[in-house]
């Protein structure tokens, strides 16, 4: 191809280029694809991707999405919360069939042209180039939306799917979002979430990934957090062939705060990567991050957390903790906590541990009458305790709790 954008592409990249060329695209999309062509699908030679090699996993992948249109979708496990339910089925957006609740606006909108840190991100660039429409949700100023908003990402096909969501929590508004990644397929799904939490707003997001083992997933949430706003996120994943949940949060104004917690339970050959980058761009901001991962068989738990504190961001208070439990010989944990601090009056700390179940505690519980399986289950549940107590919604917490129990029972 004389006008090829990609030099020496893998079959997956060549396929993507072929699809891209059939499209009518915007200048921003053209530029985004050019950037992808330069950056290429991330591989393990890149520092931030050495444990999650998307190029290796996808190089022979066919980009053709042969997804049968999934017309029947089972009801959500969060249905009892009566959520406002959005679906993105193989990249296709489905809005709730009901009247738009007061205090909200939503619809299918044009995709984003840019997001935070897009310039350096190959998969985000590819997503910008390939996504045709986006889901847009806005919570208007001062609105308190008690009813949870649910976005279900359901993938059934074997090819690529791209999707985008945009959410804006207006000043002094309050909302709660649950996002689920579902489906048992061998496809690749890329989701880009652009989020703005305006002055004085409170936003709580829970992410639950429970897909089949063959799914490849990249989900990127880029959040701008404004003055005195609070962004709270808990992610839970049972991993898949290759799954990476990235969170980029920038504090744009003083006195804002974020809690970013995550938990992974990995068995078989499942892989999960929680990568976060929190940038403190203004003073008096507070971040708390806690990650817990449990892996058995040949499961792999990846955690990469980075706090950046700019020179102006004095009095930043940021703490990061990552703990992993490995239950089998072949299980792996790769943690990389990082601090990059340019301000001199801050309190920042990180800690990371990887270990096995405490044999003393195990014997103690068994001496009291618990069989080995129950004793292990009790200790693993206890290990997740801090993350679980951060989940505010009782139904969501019980549901995740049940998933942890089920995971342990199938061991």
């Amino acid at each position, binding site marked *: 191809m004389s006008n090829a954008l990609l030099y020496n592409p893998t079959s997956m990249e060549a396929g993507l280029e072929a699809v891209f060329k059939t499209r009518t695209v915007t200048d921003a999309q053209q530029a985004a694809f050019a950037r992808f062509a330069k950056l290429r699908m991330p591989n393990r030679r890149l520092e931030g991707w050495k444990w999650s090699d998307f190029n290796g996993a996808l190089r022979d992948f066919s980009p053709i999405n042969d997804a049968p249109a999934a017309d029947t979708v089972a009801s959500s496990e969060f249905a009892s919360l009566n959520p406002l339910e959005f679906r993105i089925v193989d990249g296709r957006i489905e809005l709730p069939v009901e009247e738009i609740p007061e205090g909200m606006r939503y619809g299918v909108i044009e995709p984003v042209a840019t997001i935070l840190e897009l310039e350096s991100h190959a998969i985000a660039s590819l997503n910008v180039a390939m996504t045709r429409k986006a889901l847009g949700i806005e919570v208007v100023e001062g609105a308190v939306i008690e009813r949870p908003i649910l976005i279900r990402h359901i993938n059934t096909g074997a090819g690529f799917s791209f999707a985008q969501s945009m959410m804006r929590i207006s000043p002094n508004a309050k909302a709660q979002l649950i996002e689920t990644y579902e489906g048992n397929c061998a496809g690749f799904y890329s989701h880009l979430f652009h989020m703005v939490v305006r002055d004085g707003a409170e936003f709580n997001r829970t992410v639950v990934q429970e897909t089949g083992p063959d799914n490849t997933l990249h989900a990127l949430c880029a959040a701008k957090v404004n003055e005195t706003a609070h962004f709270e996120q808990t992610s839970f994943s049972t991993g898949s062939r290759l799954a990476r949940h990235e969170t980029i949060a920038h504090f744009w104004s003083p006195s804002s705060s974020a809690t970013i917690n995550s938990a992974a339970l990995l068995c078989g050959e499942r892989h999960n990567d929680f990568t976060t980058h929190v940038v403190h761009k203004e003073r008096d901001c507070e971040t708390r991050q806690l990650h817990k991962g449990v892996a058995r068989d040949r499961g792999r738990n990846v955690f990469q957390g980075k706090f950046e504190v700019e020179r102006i961001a004095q009095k930043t208070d940021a703490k990061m903790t990552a703990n992993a439990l490995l239950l089998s010989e072949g299980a792996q944990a790769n943690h990389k906590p990082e601090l990059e601090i340019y301000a001199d009056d801050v309190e920042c700390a990180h800690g990371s541990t990887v270990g096995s179940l405490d044999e003393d*505690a195990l014997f103690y*519980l*068994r*001496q009291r*009458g618990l069989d080995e399986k129950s004793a292990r289950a009790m200790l693993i549940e*206890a290990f997740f305790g801090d993350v679980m107590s951060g989940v505010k919604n009782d139904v969501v917490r019980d549901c995740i709790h049940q998933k942890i129990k089920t995971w342990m029972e199938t061991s």
Partner: protein
Amino acid sequence: MLKIDNLHVAVGGNEIIKGLTLKVPKGEVHAIMGPNGSGKSTLSYTVAGRDGYDASEGSVMLNGENILEMDPDERAAKGLFLSFQHPMEIPGVQTMNFIRTALNAQRKARGEDEMSAAEFLKTVREKARHVGLDDAKIKRQFNVGFSGGEKKRMEMLQMAMFEPRFAIMDETDSGLDIDALKMVGEVVNTLRGPERGFLVITHYQRLLDYIRPDKVHVLAGGQIVKSGGPDLALELEKSGYEQFIKAA
């Protein structure tokens, strides 16, 4: 009752228990005293079934059954309780949930009905008060932030809840003040009965002021080197263990 016959135990390749024989008939309280390193904790771990504490020879019979081949939880369900010398802090484990789960697991293994939540709550509160732990303490994560004395009180609370047929108390008195020692004595004396036995492991005589043993044994060099009545403890307090260390 507990009957240990010619027990040999090696830990990490070193033989610690070297042919120990001991019989505690039901309804009796026996004390084992001995110097540091004589094998007291090894004995309690072996009887309770801890990994790495395997008998190479001999038998341990609890109420007529050889328990050496049983898992620790099976031994617990048979009515064996070990009060730990160094009780664990287990962050994230809620105390009441743990005790209730363990109690019901034991009951289930014995084919008994589970204790209802309401009955459990009433019982655990009452017994917690008895051992000097207030409601706030039993609502916390297991032993987290507890002092050494409070951890021992938690051991006594569990012993009172589980009502074991045989309890081994491994240096329950270490680190306790006089009031706590009295409490331990009260718990044991309340539970004491014709169907229940106790093996009280201690360095010092003072706990035995509150729990009067039927027999006292001296453990030195991995064997019982002397047995006698309660007066033996007083004698040891005066003369020390040196004679036994030399003899062993």
